[in-house]
């Protein structure tokens, strides 16, 4: 496997791990606490792009589905995915893809990143609220009151922080990518030398 690809595999796993950590970190603002999972979902899309963004969010969902306690409140399991908050979890996957897709198309410009996070968050609610309505058998107004309105301010804060973090960390990632790229020929030469030694 090429080093760049292996690096993206590791980074996607890291973002999935961070999403899980985000479910454990609460920032208390008012009656509803902010959970940082959405923040890392948006960040995965912005930093890794659409392909690896969807891979990391999908991996997070998958790890949760096989029973690891990575969802909010230390929950996990397939049953939790089909519970009342399952729509938000599926929304994370699409959100990471969409945020990455828009961010790639506008080449990481500030205005475009704002658009990417807004559309990403709308996708989460677009899947989460109807799912909550269906599973909990609520009316639309109740589902919106329980599953969207209280979180809007917190999500706006998270969206801004996601953009700030993405812009702060991207130069570091690019620098590391250059280091890995310079390392690749050295490693491939080394492997070829080993193969030749084996043949001899």
């Amino acid at each position: 496997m090429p080093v760049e690809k292996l690096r993206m595999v590791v980074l996607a796993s890291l973002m999935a791990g961070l999403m899980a950590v985000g479910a454990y970190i609460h920032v208390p603002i008012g009656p509803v606490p902010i959970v940082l999972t959405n923040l890392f979902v948006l960040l995965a899309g912005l930093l890794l792009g659409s392909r690896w963004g969807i891979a990391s969010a999908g991996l997070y969902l998958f790890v949760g589905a096989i029973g690891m306690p990575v969802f909010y409140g230390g929950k996990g399991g397939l049953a939790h995915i089909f519970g009342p908050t399952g729509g938000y979890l599926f929304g994370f996957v699409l959100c990471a893809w969409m945020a990455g897709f828009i961010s790639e198309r506008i080449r990481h410009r500030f205005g475009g990143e704002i658009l990417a996070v807004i559309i990403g968050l709308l996708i989460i609610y677009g899947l989460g609220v109807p799912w909550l309505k269906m599973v909990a058998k609520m009316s639309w107004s109740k589902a919106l009151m329980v599953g969207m309105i209280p979180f809007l301010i917190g999500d706006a804060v998270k969206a801004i922080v996601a953009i700030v973090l993405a812009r702060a960390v991207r130069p570091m990632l690019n620098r590391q990518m250059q280091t890995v790229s310079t390392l690749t020929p050295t490693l491939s030469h080394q492997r070829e030398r080993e193969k030749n030694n084996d043949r001899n």
Partner: protein
Amino acid sequence: MITATLIQTRISWFIFDSILLVGLFFLSRFPFKQLLRELRFWTIFLFILFLFQSLFTPGLRLHSFPWLPVSKEGLLLGGLTCWRLGLILGYAVVFTAVTRPRELRDALIWILKPIPTLPERRIGLMVSLALRFFSCTLDQAEEVRLAHRARLGDRNRNPFRRIKFTALPILRRSILQAEDVTLALVARGYREDMPLKLSKIPFSHLTTLIIFLGALIGVWFLV
């Protein structure tokens, strides 16, 4: 299989799932107090949901308590919804608490192996890395939180600054750690075509699985 039975609307399936959950709970030797602690938040959510359903579902008032603004249909609907969600959460808590990550990863690779298009080794690697990063990052988050507190950062009420000064150091450290892991994998010559060693399922587990499957098929035909 359990998820399939929980989608059903008949009360007999709910009773079967409840009995099974109680049985599994006792077999797992999971502490009852911890189960209550795990379900504490969800109990509040389920109670609010029950109130919503019973107060706002149209229907006949109760004969015994006509002054109560709840309907018979609302109480029934609210009770069934909360019962189903409670069962889902109960299964999730018990399963999560008693299964080791390595067992899960091995089972995952074993399940995905017959599917030709899926890279089961890569998925297995990603799952184990994600779990590893999860535990390492939790430790790092605790370190950052303590360092933040030592510098009186917790007195700052600005949510932007609080998230920024928590998330940015965690992210930076984690990315550096990820780069180290990548280089370590490359240096060890990571390949996806290496032979796979999986532990065999013990005979006692197989017997229990067959008994459980038989009971499920029996209940399916009886109901």
